[in-house]
């Protein structure tokens, strides 16, 4: 796979570390236990477009949001995770 890092340009996927769902939001400190449980343990496993976090470990050390189709590996967009909400 090739990932177009917005900072470094297109690079092989072996430069990156995969981290999973980019939609997760850390619950506020006063959220119920169940919210933390879901945040830590529950994951969707979609067949289709999926926004996920990748870390450019062997590059610029940016955390990226990669929108990838899990069926075809087609990548529709790559953006910096910083400021993504």
């Amino acid at each position, binding site marked *: 796979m090739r990932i177009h890092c917005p900072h470094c340009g297109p690079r092989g996927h072996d430069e990156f*570390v995969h981290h999973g769902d980019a939609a997760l939001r*850390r619950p506020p*400190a006063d959220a119920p236990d169940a919210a*933390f449980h879901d945040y830590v343990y529950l994951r969707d496993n979609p067949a289709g477009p999926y926004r996920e*976090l990748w*870390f450019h470990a062997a590059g610029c050390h940016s955390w990226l949001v990669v929108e990838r189709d899990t069926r075809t590996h*087609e990548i529709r967009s790559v953006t910096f*995770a910083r400021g*993504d909400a």
Partner: protein
Amino acid sequence: MSARLPSGGLIDRTRTLRFTFDGRSHEGFAGDTLAAALLADGVRLVGRSFKYHRPRGVLTAGPEEPNALVELRAGARREPNTRATMAELYDGLEARSQNRWPSLRFDLLSVNGLFSPLLGAGFYYKTFMWPAKFWEKVYEPAIRRAAGLGSLSTEPDPDHYEKATAFCDLLVVGSGPAGLMAALVAARSGARVILAEQDFLFGGRCLSERIAIGDGSAHRWAQSVVAELASMPDVRLLPRTTVVATYDHGAYTAVERVNDHVAVPPAFEPRQRLWRIVAKRTVLAAGALERPLVFGDNDLPGVMLASAVSTYINRYAVKPGRRAVVFADNDHAWSTVADLRAAGAEIVALVDPRPDARNRAVGVARDAPLLTGVVRRALGGRGLQGVEVEGADGRVQRIDCDLLAVSGGWTPTLHLTSHLGARPRWDAARSMFLPDRLPPGMLVAGAASGGLHTAAALATGFRAAEDSLRSLGITPRGDTPPVAGEEADAWTPLWRAPSSRGKHFIDFQNDVTTADLELAHREGFGASEHAKRYTTLGMATDQGKTSALNGLATLASLTGKTIGEVGTTTYRPPYTPVAIGALAGHHRGPDFRPTRLTPSHEWAREQGAVFIESGAWLRAQYFPQAGETDWLPPVIREVQAVRSAVGLCDVSTLGKIELKGPDALEFIERLYANGWQTLAVGRARYGVMLREDGRVMDDGTVARLGEQHWFMTTTTANAVAVYQHMQHCHQVLWPELDVQFTSVTEQWAQFAVAGPHSRGLLQRVLAPGEDISNEAFPYMGARAVTLADGLRGRLFRLSFSGELAYEIAVPSRHGDAVIRRLAAAGQDLGVVPYGLEALGVMRIEKGHVAGNELTGRTSAQQLGLGRMLSTKKDYIGARLARLPALDDPADTQLVGLKPIDCKTRLVSGAHFLPIGSPTTFEHEQGYVTSVAYSPSLGHWIALGLLKNGRQRHGERLRAVDLLRGQETEVVICDPVFIDPQGDRLRG
């Protein structure tokens, strides 16, 4: 008797090459393959089949060869299962046949053929079921001896392999007319082109067929195109290179056989090179493979694909037989009739099942003795002596011959189109699978796209290149494709001749016959993927290249489905076998991964250090002196020196991260479980970091060097993971925090100076004004210092050993000089270097947790660090760390333990069991994590995790290690064995 033609061929007759096959000497010419040279020397029997040990000869002239598998070379370079049709001949080549005993001509195991009713499909699963334990000890070894391919050299491979990466606008796979045309158009248009060809010559069918392109022969055209491509700077020609796999986004893997065609690679050259090619566009022009026909005993040496017959005649000037029968269901095989006749062979019969063939036959085929009907059976012992032909009128006759050229039509080579999961679609009109959904960026041209004649190849290659270039915004430049000669290509597939005596082989390599597929179908394994597993159809080194379609057609007729409904099995990389060495490249032995050396490595080596891998680092394990032959004496001596005098240890491998910014404190607060608000500038503190699931992730110290300037350390093992975690926290979770940080692990050399004389030693190397007295620089102090020569460094008063101790940090490039200065300055103080073992002994004596306890599954509470968990703030892991399960007395807790018999050695990994209980899992209560011989106490000590351990100090238990057969009675105690009040480190 030589079968070499007196002239012609693309061989260099001025260069005679000598080689051996099964010890017998032969000669060939430069430009030969091993198969061509053997055929030229009249060798027809080249191997024995996998299961029945039947005699086999060369069937093909390419990578699809199922029969002619040989061992090449000898000794450490011996390589089994090499296709003789792909092995380029070189002077001194040693080749041996496989799977025969005692010899190829007389193979005792050919009696397997007599037992073939027992050895049919699924015989492994049926015959060797009972008794079950016989499988491993008796049946499997016996089967492996009898049924198998070549044997590996067990010596290390003396050659080396390398990896390379290349980028291009257009990758062209295959250099037949379509591939050359595509590469030429792209290159003339200014694109960056890579042309990969598995053969050692470019040209594909231009090398083996007498066809015309432009106003000359196809071969002359190919030569001129290759010459033009070679002259262009943006074209990379890769001969001897097989593209074996398609990956996502235009990434391909190719294997270049750089030096497989010489006995020993020249110095500094690899044997093979594994390419990763990243291509914006790809034209797949991999051609098509001819199919054998299925009839009785169709595996006899002397039965050969028609296209292979033409290749051996035209390219290698070898006449594979003198009396030939051609058996084909298509017009294309007529060119083989012409080639045979031109080579002076007698065409005894052209057998064609198609009633209309006679009316359409042109040229040589018109003159050939055409017989409408089929070959029912091949006749002969170790080689072909004749065929049994059944005419359309039902009359059966025997025709004597020594060569049977067969053609069952063509199968486009589509593997690379299917590696991403797409299945090809069945084109009933053309009787072939064709690509359906293509990998993004790939186009298919030539025979691979179903256009079998040369004109179609040139046209589709041209168009595929143009389309690829336009989609990249490159304007195609070039003329129209050259004109190609006319070719007959009408075809009516004959999937199977009428049944007859003899074995009807579908898969030659795995000895799978029509009867095996019938059996599989009867027993419920008639689906293509099931039949493959049940019969082994399409497995092993050729992966069904000649057999898949005939197998699917047989399954289709058995199940009453169309071939398209039966469907292909899954295509997986690689297209042809790849040596493990090529995949490993240089990553083997000590080069398996990079080795990181500490700043004091050279000095430690001079001190006689024994080194040990610690992650990617090579660290000093201990420093044996003269007479110390075992590891324990130097470790004891090093520990005693630290506890009584002073020792030096390189701790640069700890992860070091520097943080600055107004929100650095807040960031650290959220990162660590304990609080930092009260940490003053110039002070350091131990910290524990959790994962969000509440378990301990890592530990280390954090020093506050300035109001907004912090310096933290991680464990050696987790340095990368913690840094990545921090980046995640900063970029994803809390981008609003104004903090900057970076890893400085490589920038600082850091040495522990530990022991009662450490302060005295340091004073000798620091600048005269530096006051490091207990009052000026107490325990957990941290500050910048100046060394005696003006070098700036940092000093931390930290202790992992439990002694009065410091860590001094200097820029890495000064590390070697500083460790030498410390060692020299401490001579009269009794300074010793100490290694990882002594470090470990002292941390166990002090009850500090390390990697053996920080397993990622332990909680802070279990490790006795529960009081550190702040209740006043939010931090990573704060919520789930409070779950009762993480502080459950029924779970294990950190304890110390000692053997009851002081002389007994403890082993880590031993499990705790009550005294007197059965040694079963139900009674297991925890395990020993770290052990050490404590020189201070004079016996072995250990740390462990024990259920409700903190309440059980003084209790006796058994530590049982069933793996090493050891059982020891131990007494549980506090994990801190030495100086529990910490008086020494504060002194």
